[in-house]
C-alpha cells in the first residue's frame, strides 16, 4: 500500500535514516520507535508526503507521492501530527467536520457532510458529551481525542500517527490502540504509529521499525525485532523482558 525504497533522511551534520526500504501492506499496524531526535517524526512526515524532497522515494500504490495532488493524498493518507496549532475558534463537532475537506467536491461542502459519521467518530473517542464545547477549552487529552476523531472522519486508507497516545490516560490509550488495530485488522487499513511506550507494542502492532543513531535501523515482525538486545542497543540502558498473559513486557533495570 505504502512503500519507500532507499529512502535517506538527514539534517545538516546528522543522518536520520540511511537507505531505508519499507513496505507497509493493508491490514498491518507498524510501530516506529527510537530515541528522542532519532528522526521518527521526520520519517513519518516523509511517508505522509509532507517532505517534498523525499516524496519521490515514497510510493503509494504505483506512483510516488509527488505525482499525487494534495487532495488525493489526503483522501488516502491521514496524518496525526505531534503538535498542532491550538488556534481553533470553533466547537469540537465543527473541528471534526474539517476531516471531510479532502472528500468535498462542491465549493461549500455542507451537503457532503455525513453527520452520522461525525457523531460516530466523536463517540468512538468518547467526546459525545463535549461535542458542542469550544476546542480551545478542552484539556490536553480531550484535545488529542478530538484530533483522533477528525482523523477517523477523514477515513484515509493509511493512518500515520505521531505519538497518538500523548496526553491520554490509560483507558484512552488502550481505547485508541484498539480503534486503530481494528481499522487495520477488520477494515484492512494500514496504521503506522510513533510510540514510546513499549508496553503496548507487542499487543497492538504486528510490525516494528527501530531507528538507531547514525541512520541505522532494524525492521520486521514485532515478535522478531522487539527483543532485549535490540532495545538495549536502541535506548542505551539495561532492560529485562517479562512474559505476561498479554505478551512480553520490557522493564528498565
Amino acid at each position, binding site marked *: 500500500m505504502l512503500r519507500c525504497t532507499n529512502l535517506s533522511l538527514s539534517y545538516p551534520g546528522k543522518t536520520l535514516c540511511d537507505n531505508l526500504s519499507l513496505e507497509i501492506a493493508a491490514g498491518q499496524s507498524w510501530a516506529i520507535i527510537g530515541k528522542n531526535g532519532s528522526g521518527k517524526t521526520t520519517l513519518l512526515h516523509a511517508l505522509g*508526503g*509532507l517532505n517534498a524532497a523525499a516524496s519521490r522515494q515514497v510510493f503509494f500504490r504505483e506512483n510516488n507521492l509527488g505525482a499525487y495532488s494534495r487532495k488525493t493524498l489526503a483522501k488516502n493518507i491521514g496524518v496525526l501530527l505531534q503538535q498542532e*496549532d491550538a*488556534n481553533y475558534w*470553533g466547537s469540537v463537532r465543527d473541528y471534526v467536520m474539517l*476531516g471531510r475537506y*479532502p472528500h468535498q467536491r462542491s*465549493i*461549500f461542502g455542507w451537503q457532503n457532510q455525513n453527520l452520522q459519521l461525525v457523531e460516530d467518530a466523536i463517540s468512538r473517542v468518547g467526546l459525545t458529551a463535549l461535542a458542542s464545547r469550544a476546542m480551545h477549552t478542552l484539556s490536553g487529552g480531550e484535545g488529542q481525542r478530538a484530533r483522533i476523531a477528525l482523523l477517523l472522519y477523514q477515513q484515509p486508507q493509511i493512518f500515520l500517527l505521531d505519538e497518538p497516545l500523548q496526553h491520554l490516560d490509560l483507558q484512552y490509550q488502550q481505547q485508541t490502540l484498539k480503534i486503530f488495530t481494528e481499522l487495520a485488522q477488520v477494515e484492512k487499513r494500514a496504521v503506522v504509529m510513533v510510540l514510546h511506550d513499549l508496553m503496548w507494542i507487542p499487543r497492538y502492532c504486528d510490525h516494528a521499525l527501530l531507528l538507531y543513531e547514525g541512520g541505522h535501523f532494524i525492521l520486521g515482525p514485532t515478535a522478531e525485532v522487539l527483543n532485549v538486545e535490540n532495545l538495549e542497543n536502541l535506548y542505551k540502558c539495561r532492560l529485562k523482558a517479562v512474559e505476561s498473559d498479554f505478551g512480553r513486557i520490557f522493564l528498565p533495570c
Partner: protein
Amino acid sequence: MRRSLLLGFLILLAPAIFFVSVLFGSVDLSAGQVFDALLSRSNDITSDIVWKLRVPRVLAAFGCGGLLALAGTLLQVLLRNPLADPYILGVSGGAALGALSAMLFGLGMVNVNLAALCGALIAIAAVFGLSFRAGDWNLFCLLLCGVVLASGFGALISLVLVLAPQANLKGMLFWLMGDLSQADQTTPALILLAVLTVASLLFGGTLNILGLGDTKAKTLGVAVIPTQLAIFFAASIATAAAVVLGGTVGFVGLIVPHLLRLLGITDHRLLIPMAVLVGGGFLAISDTFARTFWAPLQLPVGIVTALFGVPVMLFLLSRKR
C-alpha cells in the same frame, strides 16, 4: 441553523441601514420624501440631495467598511494572529504616504487618490518581494517585514506632516483619520468588494483548514502556499481600495471579525459574508453619525468607529470571560 438565520437577518438589515443612513443629513428630509426620491429619480432638490450626495456617500461607506472587514478577516487567518488588521502589512502606510505627498504638492483629489493607490501597490510589492523567496515564504518574516515597512512609512508620514503648510494640515489629518467626504470611485470599489467576497467565499472551507496551521492543512489536502498567496493579494488589494476610498479608517478591520467570532461565527463560509455586511453597515452608520452629530461640522469617521467599537468589543469580551 441559528448562524444561517443570523446571516439572513444581516442581509435584511443592510437595506434598512442604507435607508436610515440616507434619511439623516444636514438637511431634514422625511422618510416619505427619501422613499419617494429613492423610487423615482426626478430633478427636484430632494432627489439631488438623495441621489447625488447621500446615496454615493453611504455606498462609499459600505464599500470601504466591507473591504476593511474582509481584509481583516483574511489577514487574521493568513497570519494566524488575532491582532492582525488590514493595516498591519504597511499597505495603508504606503497609501497614506502617497496621498499626503500629493496633498503636500497641492495636487487635486483625483491625483491624491492615484498617489494613494500607487503608494499602496508599492507597499504590497515591497512586502511581498522581501518575504517571498524561491517559491516559499515565512509568515513571521511577512509579518515583520510589514510591521517594519509600516513603521518606516509612519516616520515618512510624520515628516510630510511637519513639512506641510498650515493650510493643508487639516485635510491631511482628516485623510489619516478616515474621511469619506471626498470619496469617489465608489462603483469600482463596490465591484471589487463583490468580486473579492465571492472569491473568498469559494475559499471559505479552505480558510477553515488553514487556521489549523500549515502542516495540518497540507495533511487535509490544502495547497498551502498558493492559498496563502491568494489571501495575501486579496487582503492587500481590498485594503488598498478601502484606503483610497476613505483614508485610513481605523478599527473596522480589527473589530468586526472578532465581534463575529465572539458571537460564535467561526466557519469562514458564514464569517466572510457576515463580516462584509457588518463592516459595511457599521461604517455606514458611523459615517452617518460623523456627518450629522456635529453638523455642519463633519467628524473624521475613524473617530466614530473607535468610539462605537471600543465599548461594544469590551462588553462582549467581558461577557465571554
